[in-house]
């Protein structure tokens, strides 16, 4: 102990200084993500809305008459909302037990199963529709089995173009969100809290409801919010699987924009969609800050155990079985199709991927498609994780330096506002934003309309909310005492962040990185409406094959889809194994 009294005073003064300036300093990292949002979200959005409402500088209300003259749009809003709510409830309900299994048990094949559950997220809707037809269609596997069992000659199950298949597809796509976000958070929750309740005589169920569940609420809320917003803006699933009788706001915006070029009506619907997301987010952030408690987190090595006894294996088997049936069989159906030729097993379609018999200038060599997709995805991960961490550091209102005392209302309100802003791109119509890019980003230095960079920027815009929502619950759960102790021992705010915050949230950051990777690989958001030069990704190649008749095209589309699944699985496994040098495992 060589520290003198003077040095100690210096340290205390420094930390007081840090606390006093925390209000300003802790907002600093928000500048870059805010500037990003401003340039690539608000500016294009404002441009297209202005152009839509007042093309010649004056507002013409006639085009909006339709919005108010028919109850149709009110019905659409209502349907959009309740199908998203039911989808979210179903997804959370089905994935929560899975999250428990992944949080508390360590068993062989776990990371592979986890990677496979995320693959659906990247698959183009039309490919998923083909997989569902293969399994659930009139001559699909399920109906064939049932027809054999029940000895009937008509398919007993017809899910085509029903609400049931919309809900099923939403669970199929979004299960991974709940599994990963809640599972990662749960893994660091101290199991002794629940055990203590059990010791005091609470039943297993009561201990879960009254101890574990309330502690999980921040993570469940974050995941549920993402699922809800995703289903609320659902487009492909509704159109392709739901069929022409169902429409969400996003579907209507698409119709009005692309088919009727009724921009005022499309813009009005976009605004309704955005306002609704905003209201939901406001309610969420309000609840979130009330419900989040700082916790004594435990490293997963302590909380996870190898399963022992038949009961544990039953729980694991049941949940993994559900994941396999729900999420993996459709993938398997696609792979099986890609390998089948004239009733036998064949690699013919995979071999054909490597040939360009017609000498087409738009032929996509599989290696190039993989390289383009992975290149965009890595750039998206880099950009969105960097900015997501900055944003999350600011949004965590007990950020480093400030004490446990409640922050001043003004700062809190500002943070709430920022929190809302970072979520907005997810609740915004991709059609509207895509056109916004064309209108707004047409002059130097932002002449990006036809630049491949725009693809990365659009992907990042969608990926950012995933990173923020993944990281924030973990960051907020860090007990302020840890940071205060580090600060009092003389650590700079940067060092506190590096050695206290980062190791604890590292897992959550990787979850965010996985989602950013996924969002980019799956070509989400406005990118499908951006004019792009010849740098086709795997989903683009799949659509190109499916765009024309012929067995070879169908086979190659499925072979390319299988390749997409493979690359994503490998990508997820690699990201999960990624460790920032020196940051300990938590």
């Amino acid at each position, binding site marked *: 102990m060589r520290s003198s009294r003077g040095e100690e005073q210096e340290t205390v003064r420094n930390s007081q200084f840090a606390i006093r300036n925390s209000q300003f300093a802790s907002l600093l990292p928000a500048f870059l993500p805010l500037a990003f949002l401003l340039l690539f979200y608000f500016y294009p959005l404002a441009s297209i809305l202005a152009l839509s409402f007042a093309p010649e500088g004056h507002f013409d209300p006639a085009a909006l008459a339709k919005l108010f003259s028919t109850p149709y749009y009110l019905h659409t809003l209502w349907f959009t909302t309740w199908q998203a709510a039911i989808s979210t409830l179903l997804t959370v309900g089905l994935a929560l037990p899975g999250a428990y299994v992944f949080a508390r048990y360590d068993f062989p094949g776990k990371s592979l199963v986890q990677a496979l559950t995320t693959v659906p997220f990247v698959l183009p809707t039309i490919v998923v529709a083909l997989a569902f037809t293969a399994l659930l269609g009139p001559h699909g596997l399920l109906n064939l089995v049932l027809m054999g069992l029940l000895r009937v000659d008509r398919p007993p199950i017809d899910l085509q173009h029903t609400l049931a298949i919309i809900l099923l597809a939403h669970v199929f796509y979004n299960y991974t969100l709940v599994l990963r976000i809640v599972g990662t958070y749960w893994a660091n929750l101290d199991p002794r809290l629940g055990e203590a309740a059990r010791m005091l005589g609470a039943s297993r169920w009561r201990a879960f409801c009254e101890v574990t569940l309330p502690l999980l609420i921040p993570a469940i809320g974050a995941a549920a919010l993402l699922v809800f917003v995703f289903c609320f803006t659902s487009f492909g699933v509704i159109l392709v699987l739901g069929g022409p009788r169902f429409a969400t706001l996003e579907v209507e915006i698409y119709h009005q924009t692309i088919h009727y070029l009724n921009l005022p009506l499309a813009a009005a619907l976009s605004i309704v969609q955005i306002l609704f997301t905003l209201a939901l987010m406001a309610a969420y952030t309000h609840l979130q800050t009330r419900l989040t408690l700082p916790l004594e987190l435990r490293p997963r090595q302590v909380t996870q155990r190898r399963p022992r006894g038949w009961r544990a294996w039953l729980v694991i088997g049941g949940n993994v079985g559900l994941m396999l049936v729900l999420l993996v069989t459709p993938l398997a159906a696609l792979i099986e199709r890609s390998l089948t030729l004239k009733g036998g097993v064949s690699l013919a379609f995979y071999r054909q991927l490597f040939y360009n018999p017609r000498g087409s200038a738009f032929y996509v060599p599989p290696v190039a498609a993989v390289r383009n997709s992975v290149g965009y995805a890595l750039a998206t991960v880099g950009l969105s994780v960097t900015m997501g961490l900055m944003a999350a550091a600011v949004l965590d209102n007990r950020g480093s330096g400030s004490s446990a005392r409640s922050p001043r209302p003004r700062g809190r309100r500002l943070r709430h506002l920022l929190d809302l802003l970072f979520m907005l791109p997810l609740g915004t119509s991709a059609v509207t934003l895509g056109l916004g890019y064309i209108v707004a980003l047409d002059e130097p230095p932002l002449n990006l309309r036809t630049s491949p960079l725009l693809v990365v920027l659009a992907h990042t815009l969608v990926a950012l909310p995933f990173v923020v929502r993944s990281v924030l619950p973990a960051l907020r759960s860090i007990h302020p005492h840890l940071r205060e102790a580090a600060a009092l021992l003389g650590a700079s705010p940067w060092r506190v962040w590096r050695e206290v915050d980062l190791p604890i949230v590292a897992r959550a950051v990787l979850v965010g990185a996985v989602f950013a990777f996924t969002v980019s690989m799956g070509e989400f958001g406005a990118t499908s409406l951006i004019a792009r030069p010849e740098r086709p990704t795997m989903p683009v190649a799949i659509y190109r094959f499916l765009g*024309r008749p012929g067995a070879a095209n169908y086979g190659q589309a499925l072979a390319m889809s299988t390749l997409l699944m493979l690359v994503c699985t490998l990508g997820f496994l690699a990201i999960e194994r990624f460790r920032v040098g020196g940051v300990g495992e938590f």
Partner: protein
Amino acid sequence: MKRVSVFTLIGLLALVACRPGPAPPTEALTPTALPEIPTPTAPPEPRKMQVMTHDSFDISEEVLAAFEAQYNAEVEILQAGDAGVVLNQAILSRDNPMADVLYGVDSTLLGRALEADIFEPYASPLLAEIPDHLELDPQHRALPVDYGNVCLNFDKAWFAEHGLTPPANLEDLAKPEYEGLTVVENPATSSPGLALLLATVGHFGETGNYTYLDYWADLRDNNVLVTEGWEDAYWGQFTYGSGGEGDRPIVVSYASSPPVEVYFAEEPFEEAPTAAVVSDGSCFRQIEFVGILKGTQNHDLAEAWVDFMLGTTFQEDIPLHMFMFPANQNAVLPEVFAKFAVIPEHPAEVDYAAIEINREAWIEAWTEVVLH
């Protein structure tokens, strides 16, 4: 709120400050994993031009390279979604066009394109080789490049197996023996779907004792299935396309689909496995046009590109790349098309200006009858 605007300003400054030196932001931030921009060394530098088009555009490498060599040009092809999306992009960016040329506006969208006044007229000398009935715009703002016919397609083997005569015209689909056999695309979301709706408008008319809506009501009662787009209809529901998993042996597709099935088959066919119904009035002809975008800086190159698209080299490249028929009557069809393709002689006719005016009303009336 004032605070936010200050942040904004600093953020913008920070972003600008982050930009290294003279490099434009596009290059500075381009991820390294992506292919680099080639550095031209040989003088004179090729001139750049841009063509915007839909996702179905395709061309042979050598045909494209020949144009680039002849004019010392570098052609960038910008693709974004279907023809409707591309046209809307062009309309929204007409004050500062994204490209020199737009290819892919079809007869259902021509009215919108001409009304938005995005094209410059260009009377290409090659128009002399194109039949008059394909030239819809007398001012030559949009020049016909190719055409295709949207028709009913059916699965030959299915009909043979079930001992049923395949449909010969649109009317047949409403007969009881064809109940539950047809899948069509939604005209609100799909271009072949809209084409079939237009064919029925042209064939049955809007007035009289049996209108197009009466026909659609009959189809609805005969359990017609509606899908969002061609892909789901053809690959998911059509018995042949889905390999037996779908249960609809009649689908709305193109007259060129049967030869394309032969061309992309996994085994050599003596005859096409599917066939198109091409009786009078049962098809709709989609003509695809090219036009020079107003405001182009490369007028001469743009004209050269239009001539190139109408010339026989490109025209003969069309069938096996875009599966449409060349507009130029001197173009020779490839064998598989000559042998297996049928061209309907009298497709249903609807004026393009009428399409633009009535599109929304027709689709809404259709939706009301078929879906509600």
